[in-house]
């Protein structure tokens, strides 16, 4: 039995232990490895000083700071919101600004959750086409990413971008938006197998009357089907907001969201049993509090156990943004945005209504080569290189003058010595060493 499956088995047998607060001890001491693990999952990857600070502060203080960063991030958020509004004519510019936001944000958890919800609701440029609408949609996700799920769901489902994306631009009484209703139930809330065809048609009726005119949402009472509807056994003259309440009340909705948060923060390797998640589901169903659920996960024994450690594959965005943040560089994010789209994760453009795939779906022959090429480009020599991640200068700034010391520095920075015997790196010069570490199989999991 591997340490990972052993820890998962223990968690399954003892959910109370799994979600109890992690306290460092001899069995699982707090160190740079766990500090980096926490920073990777709650953000996009740490730099050297962030790892050192977290290692010194301990888990609880670090988690406090991740949940609510020091200082006021409002100024940062306002500045970038303004940049994005000004760039709203082009999705490519929006993508570039979002990547830059991820690289520079003082509140990585917020951006991580914004990206999470973007993948969940999967509103895409291919369907919407209008950059201003997409900009407002992602800003809405950001504003509500860590709050109450019910509010988020209502805001998203009546957002013009969602309505356009789900072919519900003109929801007339005569043609209720069944595609929207089906996606809402199957993808966003209760999940496949947990609703009937009748629930779909009745939910669609509740969304009639809503139109998107000139990029704005309008409600036309004359087009609203005000008859009685029955959804999940409840009867009423439901409006869209009221039917969303009914759907949000379903335990299956909480299970869907909690299970998805588990994959995002804990592990993609093993599917957890219902019993393990029940504690979280109960709490989420009661409060709908996204941040509270994440806090429980991040502080838990399970999160810091081998069952969670490097048990997720980094998405292309996590991979690239993590590298840039680690080397504390700034890069041409419009170019990076295009490179990430080539790797399958074009921001503002999830491929299907199911969002992006996760886990091993990110790694195949083509994408592994693509990741290697991207790492190679990101860590090119400065000069013509607009990515400007300069590994040699970074090594010198950290007092590492020779290749051996630089290799150790990069292994420590990116892998916290999880691959101490990396033969592929052992003979490399300073520049190549950084690239080779970024290409190691051990660097692909988060």
């Amino acid at each position, binding site marked *: 039995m591997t340490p990972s499956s052993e820890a998962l088995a223990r968690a399954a047998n003892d959910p109370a232990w799994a979600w109890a607060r992690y306290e460092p001890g001899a069995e699982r001491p707090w160190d740079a490895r766990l500090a980096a693990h926490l920073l990777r999952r709650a953000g996009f990857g740490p730099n050297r000083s962030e790892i050192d600070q977290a290692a010194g502060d301990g888990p609880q203080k670090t988690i406090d700071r991740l949940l609510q960063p020091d200082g006021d991030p409002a100024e940062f958020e306002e500045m970038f919101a303004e940049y994005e509004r*000004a760039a709203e004519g082009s999705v490519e*510019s929006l993508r570039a600004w979002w990547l830059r936001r991820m690289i520079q944000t003082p509140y990585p958890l917020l951006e991580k959750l914004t990206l999470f919800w973007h993948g969940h609701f999967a509103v895409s440029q291919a369907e919407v086409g*209008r950059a201003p609408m997409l900009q407002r949609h992602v800003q809405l996700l950001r504003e509500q990413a860590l709050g109450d799920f019910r509010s988020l769901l209502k805001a998203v489902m009546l957002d013009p971008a969602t309505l356009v994306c789900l072919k519900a631009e003109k929801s007339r009484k005569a043609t209720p938006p069944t595609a929207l209703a089906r996606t809402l139930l199957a993808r966003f809330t209760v999940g496949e197998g947990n609703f009937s065809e009748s629930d779909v048609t009745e939910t669609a009726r509740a969304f009639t009357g809503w139109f998107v005119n000139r990029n704005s949402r309008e409600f036309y009472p004359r087009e609203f089907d005000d008859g009685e509807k029955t959804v999940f056994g409840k009867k009423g003259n439901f409006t869209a907001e009221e039917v969303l309440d009914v759907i949000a009340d379903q335990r299956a909705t909480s299970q869907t969201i909690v299970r998805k948060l588990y994959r995002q923060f804990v592990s993609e390797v093993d599917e957890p049993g219902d019993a393990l998640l029940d504690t979280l589901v109960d709490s989420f169903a009661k409060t709908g509090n996204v941040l509270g659920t994440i806090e429980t996960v991040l502080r838990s024994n399970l999160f810091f156990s081998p069952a969670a450690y490097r048990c997720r594959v980094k998405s292309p965005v996590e991979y690239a943004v993590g590298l840039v943040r680690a080397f504390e560089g700034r890069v041409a994010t419009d170019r990076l945005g295009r490179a990430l789209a080539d790797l399958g994760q074009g921001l503002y453009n999830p491929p299907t209504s199911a969002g992006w795939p996760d886990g091993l779906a990110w790694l195949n022959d083509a994408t592994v080569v693509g990741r290697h090429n991207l790492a190679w480009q990101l860590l090119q020599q400065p000069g013509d290189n*607009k990515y400007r991640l300069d590994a040699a200068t970074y090594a010198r700034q950290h007092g590492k003058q020779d290749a051996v010391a630089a290799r150790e520095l990069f292994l420590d920075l990116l892998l916290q010595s999880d691959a101490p015997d990396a033969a592929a790196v052992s003979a490399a010069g300073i520049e190549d060493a950084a690239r080779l570490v970024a290409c190691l199989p051990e660097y692909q999991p988060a």
Partner: protein
Amino acid sequence: MMSRSRLIGAALLMAAVLTAHVSAADDLPPASQWLPAGALLAVEVSGTADVLDLALSDGMIDTVSAMPPLQQKKQDGGLDQFKTIVGYFEANLGTDWKTAARTLLGGGVTLALYPDKTVLLIVDSKDAALLEELREFTTTVAKGEAAKKGNADSIRSGEYRGATGWTFGDKEAHAVVGNRLIVANKSDALKRVVDLREDGGAALADQAEYKAAKAAAGPKADAFLMVNMGALKQVPNVQKGLDNVGNPVGSLLLAGVADSLRAANLLTLALDVDGDTISLAAVSDGKVDAAKSSVAFAKTDGGALPNLKVPGFLAGFSFCRDLHSFYAAKDDLFPERTGGLIFFENMMGIFFSGRDLADDVLSETEPEIRVLAARQKYDEEIGTPKTQIPAFAAVLRMKNPEKFSLVMEEAWQKAVGLVNFTRGQKAEPGLIIDRPTHGDTQFTVARFAAPKVEERTDADVRFNFNPALAMPDGYLILSSTEGLARDLIDAVKKEASETLAGIDEVHSLAEVDGTSVATILLANREQLVRNNMIEEGNSRDQAEMAIDSLVAIVSHLGRTKFEIRNESGATQARFVIELKLAAK
């Protein structure tokens, strides 16, 4: 104190960047006789005082000093070290730096680049003693720097066939012979210079391309650059770049320039400096078979018309092209693009109600085509858009205005309709067509409805456009804005009242007003800074510095003119910049 690399840099920079001429010192043959033949590229500065007068003028120094990066360095104290170096240099050589530069470079500068990446530079000083003092000074300082760091200095010297050479490291070697400084990036290359001097042999001065370039530049040129195109075209990227120009629009605009370069064995650039005006003439020896090149459609009989002058003029392009013949020959010129061109032609068929694009539309235009851009004045009722785009227009002349003007009017209104339909699909506001009058000319304009009062301070980008079509006195004006259309109606009416005269043998003319372009850049500074941040990965401070520097440079370019002519199949280009330096 200065580092060794800075010292070398300072010495070489002065030699390479500042320039001068005079025939080589009296007792030495011309530098081109000491450099081996076979150069890929050679530069010979042979106009002396003019270049240095401009480079060292108060206006140029004040202009450069006012550039944002230098201002920033000044504020940060970053220039203090530089000033110390200059002061140290002046004290040791016993002269001020400007005089030293004029003396050290005054005999001329010759540089050659060879296919094996060897670079050789010869600087002829007017004062052998000063040159030797400089060499000793740099050597002494380099030794001192090394000693200060506890390192052994890497300066080496050696004798080779009676000449003494020095090197500061692997990538540099130099020697002083009389008043001549010879610098190479490889010590072997320095030996080749000595061998040539001692034994004779094929020198740059004997290279056919060099001789041809010198002759093409003429005796009045202050400097010339010889590019051995035959050898350069062997570089895959150069070949690829030349091949890429083969698209229809590029071919039409460049009119055989790429064909000429593809056929060329030699490209000569001659520099002439006269006060604050810099002229650069390019001559290619590539002869083009007119029957197989788009150059055939660049008409030089009559020549391109001068650019029209309008208020807020930014840039103007004037061409003389036979559009009908060009398009009729498309299958021969661009056989691989036939599919795309057929699609384009079918689309045009919709606008022109099934008329044949070549025979019924393009044949109705005279060969003079002018395109220009100008600053916009925004109507108070519209407000100022957050991104300010210059107005632009195309001006042609019609052969049969009475017949063709109706065809154009119909096509233009269809185009507006198509724009409206497409925008409507995206739930965006459309254009409203109007028929105002300017003077005695009635024209057609399409405008967006005015934005709400609260939106006028940061109006949408669409308010940069209110396209117009005007056809006064046989001219055809297609403008992106009503304001520019009105200005052009005035301009063409004035032109029509005078005798139309093209610029003889010139088939392409471009003029840019740097000061006006700088104004537009400044108006869009915030947007440019933001674009720079995501396109270059710069911080906001770095981006502001980059954009402010760009604005400063452009604003000093003054009026820039570029013209291309074709004489007996050979292409010649002339580029003139009237610098607008800081007030002296």
